[in-house]
């Protein structure tokens, strides 16, 4: 009894002492619970790697060095960064906290206005050979001009109210001329749109709109965002990063997957459609596709990268697409860099024709400052989900035995191997010589006509059109004088694409020559660049007779040459304003073959104008 009483007394005495003097570990566990806490600022809390000196200063609750998380969101959110000479003259750089913003929210961003116009003129095409009767005048140039103007706002909010929260907004609106399909007395189903953006229509795009809470180890993102470390997937959802160590961060995400390539909120979640059934009919696939993924990012002093798996799951009509992805960079010594990016489809519609959807792998060789060599291999393939692609296709014609692009999805992978060598010559590498060779290959493809029925409603055998494998070799060479007469930067380069085998890659051989000159304006506040270029092409089918049953013979039978002249001017009026403009004049002449006869079309003269004004705040 006495022992129990003494024990109770000891415990009773210890309780107020413990309450009055909390342990350090209690502080760590009770992160934000103490209202009376004097916050040791975000640096001591989050100890981001971009906090200068944080490595030696920031400590965790136990007194050890604080964890330095990886910054995987693609934006430098370091609020304590310092000015440095490399960014002094740059426009799109992160602000530095002032004594005022350090006690509130650091807001930075830019507003960019961009306008573009293109107009061309030409003559009247000659009447086709053996034509009968009167042939209406057909102009060689487009009947309408391209014109758009857009406004983009990018804003970052950092340590909002000195909290752990950051946010980013990146939105853009575009107005574009839409020529429509007006033709005298006839309104076609296919409305013509201007060559602009995704669909050539007005756009209101939310590129990014997210909030992030920066924890000691975990970052949680909400909203529209890209996941650069897992295939660059765009989602509207939630992402969580957890840094298990300074070198390894787990990351996962989930949410909705907007239409790939969509650049406007009215097409982000457009009604989706299934692949055509045997009778050509398509069913609704809802509006939404979900996405989720899990992976990890790693970094060491010589390497960094990420890997993981992603699931894109339409809610109906198409099985989920599952792919693994990996990207990484490895510096092997001071002279060799290796890098890769892989998207490997393992399940879903993409895995049918292209298991290896995307591969970029290469090595950069840098024996010294004056010599660079690169070797790379790239394989690209379409990553579109069927239900999202079908959303923009017209219904197939069940009665026509033709290949109909608007109703048809064919994944065609292309491969490229490339090697280049660049050498800097002269004092301070005044001259540079670059030579490169690339080999491109597209495998043989058989196009199959969409589903079709006969008059009785029964499926008929599909028509197929084989396209042979196509290959080409490109030889490129260029020389640059960075500090020529009057400190001009002069450059001349040229390339020649030659077909290999019976079919040339993209069915065209071409030669391109370009000469450019550039110079700073007003001690680096601006720059102008002038360019003159010449390009000539010759299609594989030039001089051949077209057969409607042979796509290869019928698709393009011309040779053309283009001479362009123009330039860019960039000028920064103040630290926070710049303007940039360009004007180019193109002269395009086309010679096509009509019934084995060479016919020169009237030249097309195009004028391109571009103007961008930006303000940062």
């Amino acid at each position, binding site marked *: 009894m006495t022992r129990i009483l003494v024990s109770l007394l000891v415990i009773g005495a210890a309780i107020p002492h413990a309450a009055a003097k909390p342990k350090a570990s209690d502080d760590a566990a009770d992160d934000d619970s103490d209202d009376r806490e004097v916050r040791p600022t975000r640096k001591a809390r989050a100890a981001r790697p971009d906090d200068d000196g944080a490595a030696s*200063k920031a400590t965790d609750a136990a007194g050890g060095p604080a964890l330095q998380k990886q910054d995987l969101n693609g934006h430098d959110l370091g609020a304590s960064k310092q000015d440095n000479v490399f960014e002094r003259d740059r426009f799109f750089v992160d602000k530095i906290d002032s004594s005022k913003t350090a006690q509130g929210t650091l807001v930075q961003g830019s507003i960019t206005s961009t306008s573009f116009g293109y107009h061309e003129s030409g003559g009247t095409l000659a009447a086709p050979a053996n034509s009968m009767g009167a042939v209406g005048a057909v102009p060689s140039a487009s009947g309408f001009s391209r014109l758009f103007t857009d406004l983009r706002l990018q804003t970052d909010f950092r340590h909002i109210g000195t909290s752990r929260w950051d946010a980013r907004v990146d939105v853009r609106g575009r107005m574009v001329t839409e020529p429509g399909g007006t033709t005298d007395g006839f309104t076609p189903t296919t409305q013509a749109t201007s060559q602009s953006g*995704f669909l050539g229509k007005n756009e209101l795009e939310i590129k990014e709109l997210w909030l992030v809470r920066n924890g000691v180890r975990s970052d949680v993102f909400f909203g529209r965002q890209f996941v650069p470390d897992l295939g660059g997937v765009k989602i509207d959802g939630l992402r969580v990063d957890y840094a298990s160590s300074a070198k390894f961060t787990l990351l996962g995400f989930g949410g909705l997957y907007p239409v790939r390539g969509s650049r406007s909120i009215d097409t982000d979640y457009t009604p989706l459609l299934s692949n055509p059934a045997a009778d050509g009919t398509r069913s609704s696939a809802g509006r939404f596709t979900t996405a989720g993924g899990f992976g990890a990012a790693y970094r060491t002093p010589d390497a960094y990268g990420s890997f993981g798996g992603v699931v894109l799951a339409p809610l109906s009509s198409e099985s989920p697409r599952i792919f693994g992805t990996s990207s990484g960079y490895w510096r092997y010594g001071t002279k060799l860099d290796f890098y890769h990016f892989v998207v490997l489809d393992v399940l879903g519609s993409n895995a049918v024709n292209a298991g290896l959807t995307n591969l970029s792998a290469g090595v950069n060789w840098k024996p010294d400052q004056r010599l660079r060599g690169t070797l790379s291999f790239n394989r690209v393939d379409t990553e579109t989900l069927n239900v999202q692609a079908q959303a923009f296709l017209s219904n197939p014609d069940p009665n026509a035995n033709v290949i109909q692009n608007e109703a048809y999805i064919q994944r065609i992978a292309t491969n490229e191997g490339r090697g280049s060598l660049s050498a800097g010559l002269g004092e*301070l590498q005044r001259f540079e010589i670059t030579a490169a060779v690339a080999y491109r290959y597209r495998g043989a493809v058989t196009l199959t006509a969409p589903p079709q029925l006969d008059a009785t409603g029964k499926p008929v055998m599909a028509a197929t059109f084989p396209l042979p494998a196509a290959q080409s070799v490109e030889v490129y060479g260029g020389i640059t004088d960075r500090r020529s007469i009057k400190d001009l930067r002069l450059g001349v380069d040229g390339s020649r694409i030659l077909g290999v085998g019976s079919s040339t890659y993209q069915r065209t051989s071409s030669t391109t020559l370009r000469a450019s000159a550039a110079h700073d304006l007003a001690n680096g506040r601006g720059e102008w660049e002038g360019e003159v270029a010449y390009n000539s092409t010759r299609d594989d089918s030039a001089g051949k007779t077209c057969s409607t049953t042979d796509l290869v013979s019928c698709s393009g039978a011309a040779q053309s040459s283009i001479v362009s002249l123009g330039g860019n001017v960039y000028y920064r009026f103040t630290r926070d304003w710049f303007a940039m403009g360009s004007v180019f004049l193109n002269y395009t002449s086309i010679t096509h073959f009509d019934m084995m006869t060479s016919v020169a079309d009237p030249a097309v003269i195009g004028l391109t104008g*571009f103007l961008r004004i930006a303000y940062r705040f």
Partner: protein
Amino acid sequence: MTRVVGRALALAALLLLSLLVRAALADQFFGSSPGPLTRSHATLDAQDHCNDCHVGDSKELSNDKCLGCHDHQNLGARIAGGKGFHASAQVKGKKCESCHHEHKGKDYDPMGWSSIKGGQKAFDHELTGWQLKGKHAATDCNDCHKAKSKEQGLRVFMGTDRGCGSCHAKDQPHKLVKKDLLACERCHGESVWKPAKPAMQFNHDDRKDATMPLLGRHKDVACTKCHVKNVYKLPFAKPDSCGNAGCHQSPHSGHLFGARPCEWCHSPTFKDLANTQVFDHSERTRFDLGPAHRKIKCEQCHTKALGEVKPSRACEQCHAKDNKHGDRFKEFGSPPRCETCHPSGGPKWTPNNFNHGAHTKFKLEFKHAEVTCRACHRGSSPSEFERFALNPNKDCKSCHAHARVHADDEHPDGKYKSAQCLQCHRNGGNIIVDTKRSAIITEVHGPTGTFPLVKRHKDVPCAACHTGRDKKGKTSFSELKPNCNAAGQCHEDSLHKGTLGDKCLGCHSSGVWDALKFDHDQPFPKDAKGQVAAFPLKGEHRKNKCEACHPQRKFAETPTTCASDGCHKQDDAHRGRLGDKCEQCHVETGDNIFNHNTMSAFKLDGKHLTVRCSDCHPSVTFKPRPTDCFGCHPEPAVHKGQYGTGCAQCHTTRTWGDVKPLHDVGDFSLRGMHDNIACERCHRDNRPLAGSGNLCINCHRQDDIHNNSLSPRCGECHTQWSFAPARFDHSRAGCNLTGLHRTIACFDCHKNGNFAGASPLCVSCHRDDAFRQGTTFPGVDHKAQVACATCHNPNSWLPANINMTTGFKLESVCR
């Protein structure tokens, strides 16, 4: 008595009762108090002191009351003035008790550290207005905040002097004491103490920073030469004084020189202290040294025995012991004044200054003026200088030299009397007879003779050269060789001592001693090629006196190398580290022709061309410096320790900020808008700035509207100024578009998102147009039509040529 005892007991009972009541009240107070106050507030830990802190017997506390006591160092005024930690945004306006808790025991922390997560170590020092960086960030608080309050013994954090010297006054080996000089950041960084910043932020020539401006050679002296062990506070009362009050210990203490400023003789622009050419004795002292005095060392006259007393200008004061004349010349003073005969500062003691005409009755002319005194005044020593009793102007033969002149057997005392001498000789002392009357003299010494007498030879007495005597003792004119220096001839080679041979005429002309014919630029002698190599004199060498290089007149043996054993051995500031071929860098004009790019392993270009030598080489010994950048350029803080020593991987010497060449090579030349974005945009997470894969798509994956079906090299079509306008022309894709198709949206044809291939047939895109058109257009059932080009053109549906069968042909959108 009983009453007194009773009253006493009652009083005691009252006293006891009052004590009990007071104790009871005290128990009541401690029972209601939330807990004991900290030891610092112990004096307030009583019931009657509650309102010293609390307001109106309530639990509420007042900041004003806190500050009323704690207004040490004017804390209240500082808060009001927005100064210090308590005025920071995170603290100002808060209640004191929100951090400084009380009633938690005597030993509880009154400073409020427990209110900060992580305690004292996690305190954000930036709130005080001073962000701790580098090693400061890891330093224990108590190492800087050492002061404690006298009353409480608590550590005082406020008011700590921010000057480096407040903490590091004893750490610095420099022994600097002035507060404004103890700004360590001028030379050191907070992260890395050593190496110091390559460009120290102080100006030795500024009196604010240093007492003594650096002049001349001082600019090239390593700092540690004067500031041994980095002690910048020199232990001299006047560190800008050169001598014993400064760096250079003066050897002249007790001398006259010791009492004079060093710069009278020494100049900081001279090569060494031994060079005292700056001192002009005639200007400073009005005592012209003359050639002889100029050669002797200063201390030979200014002896230690004289101390700071100036020596007398009278020769005999110094040269009294040199008087060898006894009292022979007592007529000229006692002691006799040396200047009477010997020229002051003359090259020798030769008495060529005696004015025979002024001091005696016999003016010396002609030959008399040229002969040595001893030729007439015989005697074995200067004190036995012979006197002549007769008047030598009237009695030539009174002189022993002429006593028996022209004597022969018949005239043993001479053929002529004294009175006859001048009948033949023109003047006294002029032994020359009228040569015009002597044909043989003209034949030999005439203008066309074998030895024309020109210049100084013209006035030389015959016997001076014709020293031979016949049997009669007369001058013999035979067997005289024309060689100047032949054995027994006229001119003894006392200067060259035979080192230059016997062909005097190679340099000298007859009758002229000056070596006018000598050419330093030619080998010597000219007809003996290579015996002494030519040494052309240039620049400063031309201004030198011969003696500067040939001090012993050893002309042939003078070395021609500069430093190893030559004239400039003592001038080698490089201490032999750079070899002995001075001429590779230095030329006679004083210019330095050293070329770093051709004469060293480290090539200079860009900004390196404009820096001073001493910026990289702290000492003129030019001890080789590290050739990697890190040797002079420690990694700056902006790199955050990521990139190590390979500066050249990114930077060039053009400008430090010019990292463009890194991104201006080959495939990945970053230009246009890329020059306007921060590096972190691509190299996020502070990743190595060495590679993001060189592929545009690696950064622009989210910008790709082509569904990843085109090349990852966006630059094949787009420029770096913007995505639009693009360089892409559809003709390069095997399809020349015309008309409307040149400007419509790409997606109108490539709707499936695949840009690598699309059927070019018109119907491939427009089949639905035909199908849905049905028969609405008169005469044509479009449902059955798949060859659009039969009627339509690629620019617009109309005009259509429905009356022909071949139409526009080429069933393709591609031209």
